[in-house]
């Protein structure tokens, strides 16, 4: 196992841990969404989902990514706002 592989597992577990206030399935969905939005393809491909070191939430997140395609946004980090609508802007 390369250093990078160990690091990716650590990162996935860390993301999952920060969603631990949600229930199991919601936390897995949020973790999957986060990885989908922020990881480069080779990082996503770097984890199979079967690694014993993955936490249950993180492992489930990879199952979701593999089998169910792109998860619906959970963290809202990806909701885009209508441009220039009602005194607001997409303002990033």
């Amino acid at each position: 196992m390369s250093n990078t592989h160990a690091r990716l597992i650590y990162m996935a577990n860390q993301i999952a841990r920060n969603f631990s206030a949600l229930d199991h399935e919601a936390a897995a969905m949020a973790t999957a969404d986060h990885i989908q939005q922020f990881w480069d393809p080779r990082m996503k491909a770097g984890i199979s989902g079967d690694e014993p070191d993955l936490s249950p939430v993180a492992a489930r997140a990879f199952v979701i990514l593999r089998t169910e395609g792109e998860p619906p946004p959970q963290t809202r980090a990806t909701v885009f706002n209508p441009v220039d609508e009602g005194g607001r802007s997409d303002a990033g």
Partner: protein
Amino acid sequence: MGYAKQPDFGTPEVRSDRTVTLSIDGREVTVPEGTSVMRAAAEIGGDIPKLCATDMVKSFGSCRLCLVEVEGMRGTPASCTTPVTEGMVVKTQTPRLEKLRRGVMELYISDHPLDCLTCSANNDCELQDAAADVGLRDVRYGYDGAHHLGQAPDVSNPYFLFAPDKCIVCSRCVRACDEVQGTLALTVDGRGFASKISAGTTEDDFLSSECVSCGACVQACPTSALMEKSVKEHGKPERSVVTTCAYCGVGCTFRAEMRGEQLVRMVPWKEGKANRGHSCVKGRFAWGYANHKDRITSPMIRDSIDEPWREVSWAEAISYAAGRLKDIRAEHGARALGGITSSRCTNEETFLVQKLVRGGFGSNNVDTCARVCHSPTGYGLKTTFGTSAGTQDFDSVEHSDVILVIGANPTDAHPVFASRMKRRLRQGAKLIVIDPRRIDLVRSPHIEAAHHLPLQPGTNVAVLTAMAHVIVTEGLVDAKFVQERCEVDAFEDWARFVSDESHSPERLEPVTRVPAEELRAAARLFATGGNGAIYYGLGVTEHSQGSSTVMAIANLAMATGNIGRPGVGVNPLRGQNNVQGACDMGSFPHELSGYRHISDAETRALFEQDWGVTLDAEPGLRINNMLDAACDGTFRAIYIQGEDILQSDPDTKHVAAGLEAMDCVIVHDLFLNETANYAHVFLPGSTFLEKDGTFTNAERRIQPVRRVMDPANGYEDWQVTQLLANAMGLGWDYGHPSEILAEIARLTPTFAGVTWERLCAVGSLQWPVNEANPDGAPVMHIDGFVRGKGHFVVTEYVPTDEKTGPRFPLLLTTGRILSHYNVGAQTRRTANTAWHPEDLLEMHPVDAENRGLKDGDWARLASRKGETTLRVKVTERVAPGVVYTTFHHPETQANVVTTDYSDWATNCPEYKVTAVQVAPSNGPTDWQEDYADLSERSRRISHEPAE
């Protein structure tokens, strides 16, 4: 452009809704109520002679030169201290006034050396002007009596001198230091004739005093008593150009005052809306690095990092670089290439680098140094509010009643904003500081924090959740705001979460080490004390829970209704000058300019059409992932503009290994920085004085940067990127940064209304500038959040995995200080080293004594990652168990010890928490010695002509 001094209206501007109309010398003038007669006269072009008044500070009324006659008033009142009244009739010039003024002037001049012709202030001296204005021809007292002539000047400050014999004791400097800077370093000692200006130390010189060298007193001084040394050296300026400071995120604007191609001095621009005429030592004085001997101005290449550098022409360097990039792409694919944009460069330059990477290299592997500072702000504020930006302008602080500073040290890192904050605090606003160190703000002249919560590093989320617990369980939530403005379901989830007894201050005290009662009191004050504003810095973001802390801050602001009007808000204090801009410009691997995700097909189509390319729909690698991928062999070439990742990024050895593994490292910088030790191509960069463009400060304020001299290297940085792009076949033809800005505006809705011409006309604009906000937006989220309803996020406290233990019992936290900037590449090459020649390790007396260490001793600082040596400074500023250092000097390499732990959401490194041990030492570590060797070897430049 000719040279004219900035106008001085004599007394500060007064803001009032009511106006007063009066007559001055037969002319009618209407001004805000409370304005002085002097200022009213200046508004209509009048020029009442003055010496002790200046519009930087409140009037004082001591020199009696500005006398006027007012109908119906006895005597001759001083116009600087007399407020206007309705219907007042003022005369500023009468035979009686002339005589009185001449008498006053005569006294001043009789105690002043008359070496005007050789004085550095000649023709730039208000005493000289005033003497001419009052028509002084001769001095009846002679120069034989007691006088102050012949006193030696104080030249201790590297940038300005104090010549007591030129001083007229007008106390403008004293008042500027008090009112503008808030340092209170100067006093008037003695009385009457014996009075003199003193820096108040035993040596009584400026360098050893409390003075922070902001320059406000120099600016205020009417004579050459306080004067920039550079004016003495180069002579009086003959033209001036307004530009923006390239150091920190405050974004002060300056007049670069020039003589030919020589920069004589930088003077804060009074009309600048970020700094309002103030500055700090860096922007005001520390610009000498532009001409430092270390600056590299010829391109250089080498096939391997073991070889010396070879100076080559621009054409050869560019074609070599492009050739290697193309070869690597052909062999390993586009995703093996990437780039890093710089927060020190302009918006236009940053935009072009990410365009080159995405559109030219063909990958989204672009990142920026905000990764290591404010990426959690991007994630956290976007999630809760819908936008990655501070909500306020700096003026907002003038309306705050309670100011909460968390993980920021504004007096050192954002000094000009700190001065404004301090002014508000002196007026009575309450202060809460959450910081492991007792930063200066906690107690400084006339300021004392109502609450200082000295938390254990790494427990921000726990402390903020405990504050939320108090606010929710004690019924202090602004229910109306939450109902109207926020998603109620999410609020209720959050309220339930924080109300849990496990989040009470009492239960969390063992973790946070913050006394529960103090925390409760701080929470109550924040929720009930009126307008509450939160300011935060890297002490929030650079943690494994950086993003969670930003969201916890946003939760707190929403729960207390502190969003959407002046005086409140969530304000990230940005580190580098253009961090905001670099993020806005699409420097992150997952988003295009304006924070639009790369997976969004509609946004991508917009860019693809404009650029005529196809974009990768997948996010690219972040800096640390690039380095991992490099070690694995899947990432092989990088173009780094204006960043020194080897010194600034954590876990130096890992960075070095990553860089070393790459086939082509292109560094584009002013100096052979540390990263360049691993580079194959060095492209010389240009300074902010040598280019046009824009910077965006922490208030989202877009400001012009202007070229005042030709680039020493021959090209502005955007031109170099364009050369590289064209060598890769992209066919760009930008003639001026204004054309790049037009492209940014075309492709970025928040910049829609921004043009170079408009910026030049109005000075600055705060984005969003669009149809809804045609003149920009000083305060955001007024009627609704950018995302619609505010979103509360449950922030579970997850302790960092970096734990202290028997081998590494202390917690190291890092930061920076006033006189230096980031890795110090610029400031170390200026006289600012007078204040901070080396990085020091701050340590509590108890910890020091346990280890047999005294102030000034060498110590070995070791973590699980590595070790370094530096000198110890024993101080109670840090709590027992915590040590602190800066990272300004490459010799120290503080990042050899920092770990690769990082924020869960953004991978922003956890600089602020490293478990360490400290022990006495007698010299540099092996790594330091090896590195010094490598550094020397890899900086060799061969001057042999290439065969």
